[in-house]
């Protein structure tokens, strides 16, 4: 394809840099500075997509990000392979670059011939609320029939089929003033704001060129300069100021609390060569002292029959294609308008040598000076005319117009042949970001628009988004918003429009397809039907008809929809209300939102100092909170079950070695440390001797078990507290909360030492023999170092806090060593332990061994509603202390009531059967559904040490049910189990506390 519709001169394209892209497999030519839309028009085609519901052919409606029709799937770097294609890019803003591969969407088999167009013929059934009315019954049809059909027929674009291959960056930034939009108001605001060199100013614009509406302005003069010169000078000035950051290609898409603004910068899609590692997009999170919104306005389409035919575009967009992109959108143009501004488009097109006529809905006497100017330029203007319909299918061929007579009479039709129509129904200020900032909108009847009213944040709107349309006023308004005060001379703009919602017609409006929302295929008829059916709030009309709910958020359609609803209801427009605008302003890629948080940077994967050894020795791992822990150590040919049974046996018969480093550890230090412990734990601590350990139980104020762990007293004023792995952060926070807010008088300090010490557990009858040769300065004899004691000394020459504790019931030690030494200490113990058959074991074996002993795991046996008594741990609750966190709650009526669930053991009748954890327990499986449930299984394993399966459960009145047979759910039904004490194994020989 060549460029038959490229104008010979002018435009802001770089004719020295020709380029080509692939469009639906064909070559499309253009220049640097083009968009895909302008290249398509230069080729002579308007056809850019099929509509969402009816698959009607659609053209390019706009030149900006409000484009509803021309959505493209773009492969940004086809030469680099898969993973660089994304859907729903607007042709009107995709910056042309050599080598892009783009395709239109929503059609099959091709854009030219789309089978889905039969939907258009079925339009009478696809009315408003069609989905709600049609797909209600039968339920089974939904999954099997309706949904798959609709999915294939509808949908905007295709989801990428492989992971995104690009890198996305994230950046937090701060500034004193953030200016959104670099049109005349925004540039003027940024200039004023940055005058003071100490103020940090950021200027962001979604376009790749700065200037906004001035980019297509070839006639205005500003202080004697052309619009282009003024923009160039302004940008140069800003660029030279060190306190200004200019961000083109950057869309401000979210305006959050306290001037926290999110924007996405397209970093490299436009670059011919993007170096390795350069991000594709960057998410900016900006905290601004002041935000200046200079976001411009959106032109409204006119609503008439077939107003969606390709070749029909917005008038200002027609002007942009002619002036900015040097493209003739057609050979014979008609500008249809109720707005003065469209005359500028007609005049510019005429000046570019394109045949142009104007149809103005307004009566002659309602027009301004634009009318005389157009006529004196030789443009035929029909005032007081309505547009009945557009002719043509895949391209507009003509416009049927008719004069408006007195009392709504419509005169004789006339057909204006044309191949392109520029329409304008007036302007809607872009108040999306203002609305997102929670500012209150106020309706201005004069401007027929919602304007920014009461601000909720340090924010100010300027220019067209503020309802200011005249160029001179826009520039001055911008300067004022930026904290300046200037006067400029500028060419007067053609402003003012007459709001029309749906153009008058001489045919039955109920038979007319006049589109309000192009992207979601909502017609004027649909909206009228919704109102007739009783939907009178715009929020309801929106949801019922889906108007304004497409990816363009109804930028071009909202006011027409609102006005139509108000008209049908015969109510003033503000009483209908306006819909709420929510982020994002335009669609944002998931890549930008995710940023670097993917793959190994998705979440921190916390590894212990012994993790590398475990990995080298074949460990299988499991995640426990953010940690990855060795789960079991399979030998060749072993499955998990076999490995765990072998590990369990080894610990009970000789010695096992276990990495317990993830246990939370808190050093509690200070003269009031014991008093603090007394208040936080259920147990009493004052009498615990230095060198002693105690199992501690911690409640929340509501009396439920919060955490547990062994606590060692290292000195009168120093405790080494351990917590569960997952509970470490919340236990620390819980303690700090009480210390700071309830007991600030206590002299105690908490320091997390979870990661200072790695913990190597040696468990089993031979544990001491493995340990002995390496320990200095500690007497390991039974008498000197009994169960539940702690000693400080050295192991392998490095300092250790050595605990004589057991979570297995066997004699055991937990060796705390500074983390960097852990791997070599572990290796030394392991090598020496080989003569005893030392066996590394993982969390699964740890779980089985503790279950054999009936030891609970907080978070497994407990669910935040278990009291110490429920767990059979009343013995750990001090009767002497008058108060501790949670004590008062233990005597609340609900806590002491009969029928609470209590921890018990469960033994299946068939010892080989292992219950499911979480399985429900009932007394009578034949009871009527819903049957009364007694509780659930909390832990369940096969125990080779017991030669059978074992389980723990929380069961209503469990302790009174010893010996009772209950029924437990299985995937296929129920199985019998007998209630038993939750202790399954008797340790032989040298027990933990022998």
């Amino acid at each position, binding site marked *: 394809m060549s460029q038959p519709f490229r104008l010979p001169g002018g435009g802001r394209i770089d004719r020295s840099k020709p380029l080509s892209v692939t469009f639906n497999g064909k070559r499309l030519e253009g220049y640097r500075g083009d968009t895909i839309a302008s290249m398509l028009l230069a080729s002579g085609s308007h056809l850019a997509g099929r509509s969402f519901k009816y698959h009607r052919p659609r053209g390019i409606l706009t030149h900006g990000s409000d484009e509803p029709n021309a959505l493209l799937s773009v492969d940004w770097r086809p030469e680099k392979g898969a993973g660089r294609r994304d859907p729903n890019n607007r042709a009107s803003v995709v910056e042309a670059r050599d080598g892009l591969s783009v395709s239109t969407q929503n059609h099959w088999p091709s854009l030219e011939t789309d089978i889905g167009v039969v939907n258009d013929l079925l339009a009478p059934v696809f009315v408003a609320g069609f989905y709600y009315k049609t797909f209600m019954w039968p339920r089974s049809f939904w999954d099997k029939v309706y949904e798959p059909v609709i999915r294939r027929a509808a949908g905007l674009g295709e989801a990428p089929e492989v992971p995104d291959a690009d890198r996305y960056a994230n950046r937090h930034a701060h500034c004193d003033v953030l200016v959104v939009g670099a049109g005349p108001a925004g540039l003027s605001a940024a200039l004023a704001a940055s005058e003071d060199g100490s103020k940090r100013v950021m200027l962001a614009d979604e376009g790749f060129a700065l200037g906004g509406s001035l980019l297509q302005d070839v006639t205005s003069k500003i202080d004697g300069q052309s619009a282009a010169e003024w923009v160039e000078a302004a940008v140069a000035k800003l660029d030279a100021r060190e306190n200004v950051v200019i961000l083109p290609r950057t869309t401000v898409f979210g305006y959050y609390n306290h001037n926290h603004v999110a924007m996405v910068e397209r970093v490299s899609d436009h670059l011919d060569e993007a170096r390795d590692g350069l991000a594709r997009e960057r998410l900016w999170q900006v905290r601004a002292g002041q935000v200046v919104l200079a976001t411009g306005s959106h032109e409204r389409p006119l609503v008439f029959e077939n107003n969606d035919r390709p070749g029909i575009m917005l008038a200002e967009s027609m002007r942009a294609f002619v002036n900015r992109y040097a493209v003739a959108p057609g050979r014979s143009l008609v500008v249809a308008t109720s707005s003065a501004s469209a005359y500028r488009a007609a005049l510019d097109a005429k000046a570019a040598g394109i045949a142009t006529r104007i149809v103005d809905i307004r009566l002659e006497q309602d027009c301004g000076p634009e009318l005389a100017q157009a006529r004196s330029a030789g443009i035929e203007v029909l005032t007081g005319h309505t547009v009945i319909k557009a002719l043509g299918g895949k391209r507009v061929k003509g416009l049927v117009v008719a004069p408006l007579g007195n009392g709504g009479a419509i005169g004789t039709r006339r057909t204006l042949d044309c191949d392109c129509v520029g329409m304008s129904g007036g302007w809607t200020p872009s108040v999306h970001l203002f609305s997102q900032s929670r500012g209150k909108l106020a309706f201005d009847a004069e401007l027929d628009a919602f304007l920014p009213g009461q601000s909720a944040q340090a924010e100010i709107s300027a220019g067209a988004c503020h309802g200011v349309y005249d160029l001179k006023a826009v520039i001055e308004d911008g300067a004022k918003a930026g904290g300046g005060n200037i006067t400029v001379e500028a060419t007067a703009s053609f402003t003012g429009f007459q709001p029309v919602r749906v153009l008058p017609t001489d045919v039955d409006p109920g038979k007319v397809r006049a589109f309000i929302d192009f992207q979601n295929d909502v017609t004027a008829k649909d909206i009228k039907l919704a109102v007739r059916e009783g939907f009178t709030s715009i929020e309801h009309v929106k949801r019922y008809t889906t108007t304004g709910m497409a990816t363009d958020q109804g930028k071009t359609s909202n006011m027409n929809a609102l006005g139509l609803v108000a008209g049908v209801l015969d109510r003033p427009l503000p009483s209908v209300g306006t819909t709420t605008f929510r982020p994002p302003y335009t669609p944002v890629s998931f890549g930008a939102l995710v940023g670097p948080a993917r793959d*190994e*940077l998705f979440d921190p*994967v916390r590894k*212990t100092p012994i993790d590398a050894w475990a990995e080298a020795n074949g460990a299988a791992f499991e995640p426990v909170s953010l940690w990855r822990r060795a789960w079991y150590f399979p030998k060749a040919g072993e499955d998990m079950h076999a490995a765990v049974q072998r590990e369990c046996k080894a610990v009970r018969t000789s010695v096992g070695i276990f990495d317990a480093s993830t246990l939370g550890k808190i*050093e509690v230090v200070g003269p009031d440390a014991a008093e603090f412990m007394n208040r936080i734990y259920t147990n009493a601590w004052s009498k615990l001797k230095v060198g002693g350990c105690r199992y501690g139980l911690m409640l929340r104020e509501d009396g439920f078990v919060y955490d547990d762990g062994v606590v060692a007293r290292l000195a009168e004023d120093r405790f080494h507290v351990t917590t569960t792995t997952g509970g470490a952060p919340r236990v620390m926070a819980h303690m700090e909360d009480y210390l700071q807010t309830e007991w600030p008088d206590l002299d105690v300090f908490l320091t997390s030492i979870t*990661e200072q*010490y790695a913990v190597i557990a040696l468990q089993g009858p031979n544990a001491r023999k493995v340990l002995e040769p390496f320990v200095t300065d500690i007497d390991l004899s039974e008498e000197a170092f009994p169960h539940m004691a702690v000693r400080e000394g050295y192991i*392998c020459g490095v300092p250790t806090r050595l605990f004589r504790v057991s979570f297995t019931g066997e004699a055991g030690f937990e060796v705390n060593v500074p983390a960097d030494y852990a791997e070599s*200490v572990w290796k030394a113990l392991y090598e020496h332990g080989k003569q005893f058959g030392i066996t590394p074991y993982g969390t699964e074996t740890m779980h089985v061994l503790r279950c054999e002993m009936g030891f609970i795991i907080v978070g497994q046996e407990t669910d935040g509603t278990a009291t110490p008594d429920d767990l059979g741990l009343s013995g750990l609750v001090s009767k002497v202390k008058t108060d501790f966190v949670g004590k008062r709650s233990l005597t609340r009526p609900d806590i002491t009531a009969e029928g609470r669930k209590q921890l018990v053991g469960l033994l299946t009748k068939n010892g080989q059967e292992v219950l499911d954890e979480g399985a429900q327990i009932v007394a009578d499986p034949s009871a009527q559904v819903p049957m009364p449930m007694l509780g659930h299984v909390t832990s369940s394993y096969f125990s080779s040490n017991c030669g059978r399966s074992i389980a723990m459960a929380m069961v209503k009145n469990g302790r009174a049910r010893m010996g009772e047979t209950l029924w437990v759910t299985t995937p296929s039904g129920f199985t019998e189990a007998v209630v038993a004490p939750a202790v399954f194994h008797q340790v032989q020989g040298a027990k933990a506390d022998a």
Partner: protein
Amino acid sequence: MLEVNLARRTPAIRPAAVASAGPIRIAPETGEGRLSFRAKAKALGGREDVAGFAVDGAINSRKSDGDTASLRLGPDEWLFICPEGDIDDAMSAIERAMDGAAHSLVDVSHRDVTFTVSGQNADAVINAGCPLDLSLDRFPVGTASRTVFGKSDIVLARVGHHDFRVTTWRSFAPYVHGLLLDAAKDYAG
């Protein structure tokens, strides 16, 4: 009797991993000893230092003196830094200096890992994951604060215009390191 002095250090991030992306240098610090020191104002009695570690700095400041430094992270919280070989002596000296006044001193040398992040745009690299305003007047040289970097807690200190120290817990170090290296790619060109 087996050889007892056989333990060797295995740091969380090997110093060989001085992977730097272009002009930004990102390297783990080695040989740093760290002490968490806590004391309330009444226990400090207005003194300027404890055994040579400054305790008179403002909250969120870092004072350094030769090869030691004191980071004040909260009203009653400091992180003291000294060469790792000096830790035992420093702890004894601090205990002596406090002379029974209420305080807490805990060795956290192995808990934490510190990275140097230096070079032009080092601030921007840190701002890839840290939401603080790192302009020189808001976060001047000599500032130190606990904050966040991506999904990790860090202690961030500015020791020069383009020179930062990022300290995190040991198990978060690979993540922090990875995120720093990733962010530095933006400034490699």
